[in-house]
């Protein structure tokens, strides 16, 4: 019997895998830093035993680094936990600004690898829609992935959520206005079935404008 996955499931699994890989990679970096600095502390200990004078400042630097990396690893674990719990409730009321901030945090490593900075514009007001939080995170991440590839290194990607009479919208803008020119490649990043499941309409201004995701107020449970 072959393994069958629907398109939404497959794209969701790939998204989940990529995010988990990125977060665990960052955690490994934090542990590697702690490991190296603990090793250096052991070296200092040996040096002191052999009579080499050491200033307290050296130990202060090491302890600060280790505290910082423990905090970093702890934050990464919290983010991973929050991400994992995103599938607990399949459809619920979602604060779009919070979701954009969260996806932006998940995308940090991907953005850094491509030399792109991501900014979520400060909300003017609370914007909520009832939708699948995990699937919407997935779709926005796919759109960000497309945008970061389209805009190239050294540019800024801005995300903004706004309320509309019919629900809400999320706008992705590139500082070099490159998204519209590349929009024919968007389908390579965003699975059509995912867009349909969320009942999202994706629009772009062909005169070098931003990418706009138009969301309904509510999708069926």
């Amino acid at each position, binding site marked *: 019997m072959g393994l069958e996955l629907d398109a939404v499931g497959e794209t969701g699994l790939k998204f989940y895998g990529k995010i988990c890989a990125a977060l665990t*990679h960052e955690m*490994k970096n934090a*542990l*590697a*830093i702690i490991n*190296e600095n603990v090793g*250096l502390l052991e*070296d200092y200990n040996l040096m002191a035993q052999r009579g080499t004078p050491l200033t307290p400042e050296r130990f202060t630097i090491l302890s600060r*680094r280790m505290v910082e990396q423990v905090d970093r690893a702890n934050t990464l674990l919290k983010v991973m936990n929050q991400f994992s719990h995103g599938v607990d409730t399949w459809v619920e009321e979602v604060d779009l600004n919070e979701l954009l901030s969260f996806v932006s945090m998940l995308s940090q490593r991907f953005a850094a690898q491509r030399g792109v900075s991501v900014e979520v514009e400060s909300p003017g007001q609370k914007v909520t829609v009832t939708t699948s939080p995990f699937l919407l995170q997935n779709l926005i991440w796919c759109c960000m992935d497309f945008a970061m590839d389209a805009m190239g290194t050294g540019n800024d990607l801005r995300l903004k959520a706004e309320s509309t009479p019919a629900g809400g919208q999320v706008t992705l803008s590139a500082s070099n206005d490159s998204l519209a020119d590349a929009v024919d490649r968007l389908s390579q990043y965003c699975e059509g079935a995912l867009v349909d499941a969320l009942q999202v309409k994706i629009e772009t201004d062909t005169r070098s404008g931003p990418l706009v995701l138009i969301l309904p107020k509510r999708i069926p449970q």
Partner: protein
Amino acid sequence: MNVLLVDDEEQLISALAERLSIRGLNTQWASTCDDAIQLAEQTDFEVAVLDVKMPKMCGIELKKVLQGKCPRMKFIFVTGHGSEENYRKGLAEGGEAYYLVKPLNIEVLIQRIYDITNT
């Protein structure tokens, strides 16, 4: 022996550099590829220890640039990816080089440095 360390994690690379220096290796470090290239223009390094995944330029691309500056330079790659597939892929892409997985064992790294400079 002059050793160049390159990793975007500054707190890692500076600690590693200090540990290698304590063990008698003349070590310099860089947390960006641009800084690494600049150092390679000033010093004839025998070995470079490069992180595979760095922002803007990966370790394998940096290797090609550094080889132009220091033709004698040998390379050791460090990766946070522990999968066998990534190891084989990196070996195929990077050519003759050593691969180590983070977190590093300093004694293993030093042994690899001496091994690679003796080949």
